[in-house]
């Protein structure tokens, strides 16, 4: 199978630092895009790159998202202020800093964050000062970073397809992984229904394709029962292929997830155990490969009956979700196939205070994914 990210660029841990140290020697002009949030990991990625003392532009776009008066995230104003102060100290005159505020919902409670996130950048001119765009998704919610990165990648790809070769910046995604902190941050105030993700609908919403069976691939994480139920009700899949983490830092995690959802998956949703897909928890390109392989398999098998639609839901870590992003972008956006993302909006997030504890934070792993640019050109 011919796939865009068959060969990929991913660095983690010590390799992350080595890569950026060597890469920045060529006076790179960097645009950082990151979320303003309470996540204690918010500044770890930029910090690691900024402390590399090389010349070049270091501009920042900080995305502030307003979740409304009742959002539980408002309880963490102090944590947000601490993060902002840390970031200011890090930038310390090395570049410009601009804050873009996104309203996550309208006055009547409808969620609009995803659409607004896709409208932040409109054309290549938005990036003409930079050689590299770095989106740090650590403190960004899923419904913001998917359309945001999707739109940036779409702008870069469109420029390339029109023959423009110069001044197309590289696109990197940073993720700071920490299983303990991930577990301590929970969605709060779920919407009553699931929905398609703006920009990533993949034609799933088109009624004239209603008869085509839907294959659903939820990437499973802990405590997502309500979301699984809502998404299942929304898409009524013909077949469910849950994606479980394996290999994983906790080797039993996949089994524990099966145990957590055994009634829901096996009894109520009648998932066949042979449908389970295993993918490397720490390699989004591997998640991408596994999901893509399954998409091709179902598409081939069901072609005589008119093909299939594929709905992907990311209910696990941000790192794994990037695997889903790559599939949904390549298949749903680039190739205009029936592959889209389905998710449940929430009012905000809540976090256990233990997550801010220094020793927990020290166990975080930095990942950098080079999504588009020079390294793919040969």
């Amino acid at each position: 199978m011919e796939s865009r990210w068959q060969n990929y660029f991913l660095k983690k841990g010590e390799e992350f630092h080595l890569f950026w140290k060597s890469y920045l020697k060529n006076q790179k002009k960097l645009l950082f895009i990151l979320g303003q949030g309470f996540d204690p990991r918010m500044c770890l990625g930029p910090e690691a790159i900024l402390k590399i003392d090389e010349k070049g532009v270091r501009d920042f776009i900080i995305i502030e998202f307003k979740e409304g008066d009742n959002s539980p995230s408002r309880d963490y104003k102090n944590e947000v202020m601490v993060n902002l102060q840390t970031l200011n100290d890090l930038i310390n005159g090395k570049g410009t800093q601009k804050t873009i505020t996104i309203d996550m919902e309208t006055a009547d409670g409808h969620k609009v964050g995803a659409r607004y996130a896709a409208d932040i950048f409109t054309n290549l001119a938005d990036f003409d000062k930079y050689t590299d765009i770095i989106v740090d998704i650590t403190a960004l919610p899923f419904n913001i970073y998917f359309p945001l990165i999707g739109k940036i990648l779409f702008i870069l790809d469109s420029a390339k397809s029109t023959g423009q070769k110069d001044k197309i910046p590289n696109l990197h995604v940073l993720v700071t992984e920490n299983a303990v902190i991930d577990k301590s941050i929970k969605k709060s105030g779920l919407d009553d229904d699931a929905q398609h993700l703006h920009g990533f609908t993949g034609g799933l919403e088109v009624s004239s394709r209603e008869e085509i069976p839907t294959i659903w691939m939820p990437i499973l994480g802990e405590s997502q029962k309500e979301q699984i139920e809502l998404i299942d009700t929304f898409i009524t899949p013909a077949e469910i292929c849950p994606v479980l983490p394996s290999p994983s830092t906790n080797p039993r995690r996949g089994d524990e997830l099966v145990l957590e959802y055994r009634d829901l998956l096996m009894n109520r949703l009648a998932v066949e155990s042979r449908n389970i897909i295993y993918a490397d928890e720490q390699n989004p390109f591997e998640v991408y490969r596994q999901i893509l392989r399954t998409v091709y398999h179902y598409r081939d098998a069901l072609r005589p009956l008119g093909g299939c639609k594929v709905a992907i839901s990311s209910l696990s870590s941000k790192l794994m979700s990037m695997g889903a992003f790559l599939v949904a972008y390549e298949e749903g956006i680039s190739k205009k196939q029936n592959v889209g993302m389905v998710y449940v909006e929430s009012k905000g997030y809540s976090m256990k205070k233990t997550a801010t504890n220094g020793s927990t934070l020290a166990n975080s792993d930095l990942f950098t994914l080079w999504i588009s640019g020079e390294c793919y050109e040969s």
Partner: protein
Amino acid sequence: MKEPRNPFSMRSTETIESNLTFLKLFGPGALDALPEDSFLNKVTIFRSGPGGGKTSLFRIFRPESLSTIYSHRSIQEYKELFNVLKNFDVISNEGPKLLGIYLRLSDYASFYDLNISDQEKERFLFSLIDSRLVLKMLRGILVLKNLGSQDLNRIYIEKPVGQANLPNSPLPCTGEVLYNWASKLEENICGVLNRFDHNLDSSVHFYNELGHIYALKPENVTLDGKPVIEKTLVMLDDLHELRKTQRSILLKRLVPARYPVPIWVAERLEALELADLIPGITGREYDAVYLEQHWESSKGKTFENFVKTVSNKRAQIANIDFEISSFNQHLEESLDAPDWAPKFKNATTIIKNRIQQKALTTSVYDEWIQNQEKKIGTPKEIAEDWRALEIRIARKEKDAQKTLFDIPLPVEDDEESGIKAVSEFFIHEEFKIPYLYGFSRIAKLATSNVEQFLEMASELFEEIISKLILKKMDVLSATRQEEIVLDIARRRWNEIPKVINNGRDVARFLSSIGKFSREQTLLPNAPYSPGVTGIGLREKHYLKIIDVEEQKSRPEYKRLAEVLESCVSHNYLKATYDAKQGQKDSEPVTILYFNRLLCAHFGLPLGRGGWRYKTPDELCEWLGLQLTIREKKGRT
């Protein structure tokens, strides 16, 4: 498809993929909620909280269901439904007569974020609904006639004469031409809405109304030149998913348009403003059916009987090695078995002792006690009678007009209202004897919501089949039933902050009502028997909370209104408007009763009738809101 081991776990209609399974499980009693004039050419709105049964009701009239019912009409399991639907004249011995066109309005809200004019937004909304109705109609005909998409060209649709304004419509044309036209229109709009790159195809014409509904009239549609359907019904589900403006525009267009087909619209209560959430308090523009209210206002045990049918049907299809003919027969229904006798006897002894201690200092209650001693009954009845006597004594003690002389009070023939129910609850509280058990009470706990019933029944059934497999017992003990119900109630409570937008406010508010209600319920003289399970708002107070101008000067009322709205629309509080309170010196009151599962969580009895007046300021304080200063001196 293999039936599941626990069929109760299939809760919402959407999750039951197989039509056969859905129809097998459907309780025809749900169709009683349909008003007699439902099939007239007008708009009827069906409202309920989540899981109230709207989508199931609509699903019955979809072509897939009617075809399946027709082809299985001789099989016992479907016979009753076939006959009920025959009475509605939507099916006959010759086949389905109705083409039900079902459309969910779930992904239309995003029009309102587009940077385009309001007129364009409206045109997108109506054009998308219009195109999808056309697609659903054509597909529906294929299903009813058991045809494939290659047969679309055998269908012919006339251009409606008269009212419809359909410029650029391909009508009159074959089904194939119309299908392709509608697909192109739909894909164009979806592309604009959802893709990063899509530009509108300038050749596509958009509409300001649902013009093609006129073409859905049966006489406009033929198959091979012959009439194909006798009736059409348009069903628009999930209206609450639209933006408020969209919802209002759609309803304003639908109602006066007088389309030549009946139109049913379903929405959750959450779409409504607080003012509209309370049936009876404001005038209505449309014929609205409140499903839960339908069950509550029905006489007798209508909901209980309905869920009994539903639960027995589900139990019967369970994929297990033995047969279960009925669900309720496996639930312990009474505490009269010998196992319980020692507990009740012990309770009787303790209560009796307390009463006798009191009687040592007065002879006022002598006759009551003597009369009680003579009573016969089961240990449970005797214990409850003694507890009732204790409450009666507490009431008398509390009474300001105590007798001056120590003269024994005569035995009263009439039981004071609710005292029996409250004595059972008090015994449960004091002696930890189960209260939440038996089918009637489980049905009551569902608070007229089918999904809530299925949630409890699912876990009870799981336990029943496990016990039966292990051959441990035939019936699930009352104690275990109560444990399961309380566990569900606890989980339901814990999920409030997670699943409701302003969930933390809602939880805080409900928690305050719960605490208050319990304090009032457990007063020794049980003054509000069977207990306090709700609060009442005087009409003037209620109107103040929902008044937009008042909310501007009292922002805490806005927050309170939002919380009340969430509580009612998510079925945590049931609202009733009692105009009868207006007789004599009192005024109409809006009563907000707990969902009975929350009664279980807060340790309250399940009965209704006991409620206490509260002012908006008291409610704001419960929410932890600061009151606007100007009002602090003189409270509302």
